[in-house]
């Protein structure tokens, strides 16, 4: 019966579904995986790099973008929709700074993006944005934040979350492995993000992009070498953990 209620965004189905919004959530699943982790003093964004065509300039295919000096986001879904949302968010960050003379809080800009997305679920002639975003950053109080928005316009704060293609698998990994020890220091938080992505990314470290943000510091993108060295350290730890496992006697 979905077919009668899924043409217009403004039409509810008899059982309360907004099918266009749900279809937009399916579009998000077509984007590659992105993971966000909130550490004690660091926020980490890791993304599965999309395989780029031979003649394409890799720099123009980015899933992690800065919205301001202290806020950045990663998205999954329709590239063009993401570009529009990011542009609007960046303008809002500067407008807020000029008007109120304070940088935006992470929650404020998340709420702005979520409100924008919600508007597009309630207007005739428009379709919802087909992206989910992970927004990370530090507020003036120095506390790290991680928020996630989705095409329906909802937003929630998370300790760690994943969006995109294999988000469910990554989220289950995070639920098992996100402990206070795992985010005890910055390096552990970075390793947790990479380990989560390695669960679903094919051919390892060279298909991962990573960015971190520390208090009062701008966004830092990891180079391929740095990611590779982290991956090697993770593989080493895995091997050692395997060796330490007591062999079962049959």
């Amino acid at each position, binding site marked *: 019966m979905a077919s009668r209620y899924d043409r217009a965004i403004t039409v509810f189905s008899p059982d309360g579904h907004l099918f266009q919004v749900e279809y937009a959530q399916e579009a998000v699943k077509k*984007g*590659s995986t992105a993971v966000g982790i909130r550490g004690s003093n660091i926020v980490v964004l890791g993304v599965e790099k999309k*395989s780029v065509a031979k003649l*394409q300039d890799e720099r123009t*295919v980015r899933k992690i973008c800065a919205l301001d000096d202290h806020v950045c986001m990663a*998205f*999954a*879904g*329709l*590239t063009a929709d993401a570009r529009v949302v990011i542009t609007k968010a960046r303008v809002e960050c500067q407008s807020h700074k000029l008007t109120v003379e304070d940088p935006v809080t992470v929650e404020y800009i998340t709420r702005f993006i979520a409100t924008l997305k919600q508007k597009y679920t309630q207007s005739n002639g428009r379709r919802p944005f087909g992206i989910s975003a992970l927004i990370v950053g530090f507020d003036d109080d120095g506390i790290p934040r991680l928020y996630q928005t989705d095409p329906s316009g909802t937003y929630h704060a998370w300790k760690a979350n994943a969006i995109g293609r294999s988000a469910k698998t990554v989220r289950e990994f995070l639920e098992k492995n996100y402990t206070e020890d795992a985010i005890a220091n910055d390096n552990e938080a970075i390793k947790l993000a990479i380990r989560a992505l390695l669960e679903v990314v094919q051919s390892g470290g060279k298909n991962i992009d990573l960015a971190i943000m520390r208090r009062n510091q701008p966004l830092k993108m990891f180079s391929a070498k740095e990611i590779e060295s982290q991956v090697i350290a993770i593989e080493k730890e895995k091997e050692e953990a395997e060796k330490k496992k007591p062999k079962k006697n049959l």
Partner: protein
Amino acid sequence: MAATFFGEVVKAPCRAGTEDEEEEAEGRADTPEDREVRRQLARKREVRLFRRQTRSSLEVSLLEKYPCSKFIIAVGNNAVAFLSSFVMNSGVWEEVGCAKLWNEWCRTTDTVHLSPAEAFCVFYHLKSNPSVFLCQCSCYVAEDQQYQWLEKVFGSCPKKNMQVTILTCRHVTDYKTPESTSSLHPPFLKALKTQNSKESPCCSLLEQPNIVHDLPAAVLSYCQVWKIPAILYLCYTDVMKLDLITAEAFKPVLSSRSLKGLVKNIPQSTEILKKLVATNEVQSNIYT
């Protein structure tokens, strides 16, 4: 003629034919130009079978020239990818012919030098058992060309002692079922066989009122008429482009009588299929 409520007399459409029909027929008389255009179009749309190595056309139909006990036909890119990875990589296959045809669905306008690189219809036989034939057909065979294709491949009097297996895909939106569509989990296989086929299919049979379309339907109908045992495996999928999960959905067919013995190393074949799908993946920048 008919009268409306308001008293107007209007010309009512009549399927039985009108008095004007004779006048219209006279106006439609064929000019020599029309006939020439129709001849040229018919020549353009001709299905030709030839050997690529010798560049010579086949004078007789393919299965009249070569004896055949098993004929496996893959129609569509997912079925072709499946056969390429699982069957063709498990043995040495020799190309015996290629069908050249043009229709409006072909992307090329050159009807003389059609390259089999993009859309093709190639025939192979197994070197170690030359009566086993395989056809990879990734081009669209139009309705008016299907009969020609059948004639050129099977001939006008086909032998009945062969087993035909056809693999093809169809979009799941074409599948009619009284169940709710949320209970469907594409891709899934359905089978349809001719009366003479004694093989028990490796999946459930296609239910009414679903029908098969295009070349697979033409082959199956032909086999039914000529009492050739044939079975069609139809994969309903929600992804029409080349897709790993769709191609792998044909795996249950490997246990069928027709394909048994033709496939050797399944894990290796799965890897080959993955590589094939990855190399053929069109770069899409819509989703990131």
